[in-house]
Each structure stands twice: as structure tokens, then as C-alpha cells.
């Protein structure tokens, strides 16, 4: 599934990084501790987190994530959006809880 399809299917909002919407999503990970995420998430994951600060972009680049979803109604900082735009890392937002979105993604086969 491409990031653009995921956005459409689950009603996610694009906050930044539109240049990366063609990326393929092959896995998923949910977490708010950056060390835990960088160590354990697979490449090409969609990462679901409540964090919206700019260091999420560095983690997404280093681990080659497909996209980052900021959940629970949180929004990325301006600096985070600037960085994501510059790097083409899709930053998406979701009003519901991480649990809810992860449940939907997992039940459709995204491990």
C-alpha cells in the first residue's frame, strides 16, 4: 500500500512532506520513545506516535520509514514540517488514538 492510499483509506491529514506520498508502506510500528523506535522498527514502516518535534524526522530518515503519523490530535511543530518538506518525509496526522489506527492497519494485514 502506498502512503497516498493509506491517507485516503483512513482519512489521515497530510501535514508535510507531500513529496513522499508515493512511498510504499510495508510495515508498521507504534511508539513514543525514540530509542525504542529506532532500534526496533522495520524499514519502510509507517510510524505512529504522539511526538511532533523535529527529531522524529531524523529517526524517520535514518530508518527509512515510509511515513510518520502523529496521533491523538497532536500536530507537528513548524520546524518539524520544514524539515519533513525538505526531506520528503510524509508527516500525517490522525485525530483518534494510536491504538485505534494501529488496530485498523494491523487488521488489514500490515504487520
Amino acid at each position, binding site marked *: 500500500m502506498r502512503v497516498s492510499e493509506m491517507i485516503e483509506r483512513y482519512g489521515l491529514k497530510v501535514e508535510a512532506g507531500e513529496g513522499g506520498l508515493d512511498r510504499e508502506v510495508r510495515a508498521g510500528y507504534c511508539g*513514543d*520513545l*525514540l*530509542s525504542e523506535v529506532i*532500534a526496533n522498527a522495520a524499514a519502510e514502516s509507517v510510524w505512529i506516535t504522539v511526538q511532533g518535534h523535529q*527529531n522524529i524526522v*531524523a529517526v524517520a530518515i*535514518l530508518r527509512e520509514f515510509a511515513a510518520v503519523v502523529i496521533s491523538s490530535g497532536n500536530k507537528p511543530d513548524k520546524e518539524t514540517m520544514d524539515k519533513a518538506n525538505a526531506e520528503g518525509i510524509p508527516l500525517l496526522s490522525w485525530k483518534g488514538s494510536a491504538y485505534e489506527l494501529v488496530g485498523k492497519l494491523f487488521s488489514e494485514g500490515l504487520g
Partner: protein
Amino acid sequence: MNRLRRTYPVRHGDFIHAGEASIHVKNTLKSLSYCPDLVRRVAICGYEAEMNLVMHGGDGVLTVVIAADEIRLEVADTGPGIENTELAMQEGYSTARDEYREMGFGAGMGLPNMKRNSDEITVDSSPGQGTAVTMVFSVGGRCP
């Protein structure tokens, strides 16, 4: 292959540029066709080391030495040093400020992640003397 050595300054408290050195190292290794698993491990260790400098270490430098048989990351800072390195290597031990914890750092996973993802690690530090961390990654024959 000749040795390639690059040094990157890392500034204490600079969350804006945090991770950029590791991203550059990762991209360099990738462009040189090192194994994806090795690139992943170096990226994780570089990022953790950079964040340690940004949060705890004071100004410092991250140096990468790239060779055919091994990759080395050398990270040195002029910060306050580590009182008890054995304790600092334990999973879950952290001296991070609350504001860093709220950002998802300071879970006591940095040094353990570096130990787990490198083939050799040495931590040389004492209070008031700064910290020097060296990590070595062996370059194996075939990609796993």
C-alpha cells in the same frame, strides 16, 4: 579501499541539527554499498551517540572512519562526564531531564542500544573529563 575519515561537530542543546551527522554517515555507507544491516546498526549507534552529546555531553565531535574491513564511530565531548559508566550502560538507567523525557528521550536505552548494535564498544569517561565513546563494526563477507 583507502580509509575515509570524516568529522562532524555536534553541539550541546542543538535539537534542530541533531541526527544530521548520522544521516550523512548513513547515506555515505549506503552509497558505498555496505550491507543494509550494517548501515542500519551504524545509523542507530550514530544517532544515539549524537543525542547523548546534544542532551548530556556538551559540545563534541562525531568521527567516522570507513574502511574495507571495519567502520569506526568515535564520539568525544567536553561535557560533565559519566560518574558510573557501568550503571550508565544498564538498560533503563537515565539521568535525562524531564523535558527530554517528554520528547521521548531519556529512557535509558541510548548506551544499551549502542552496545547491542556495535561489535565493540569502549566508553572512556570520568566526572569533569568529558566522554569518549568508540564503536567498531566489523564488515563481514556476505550480507546476512
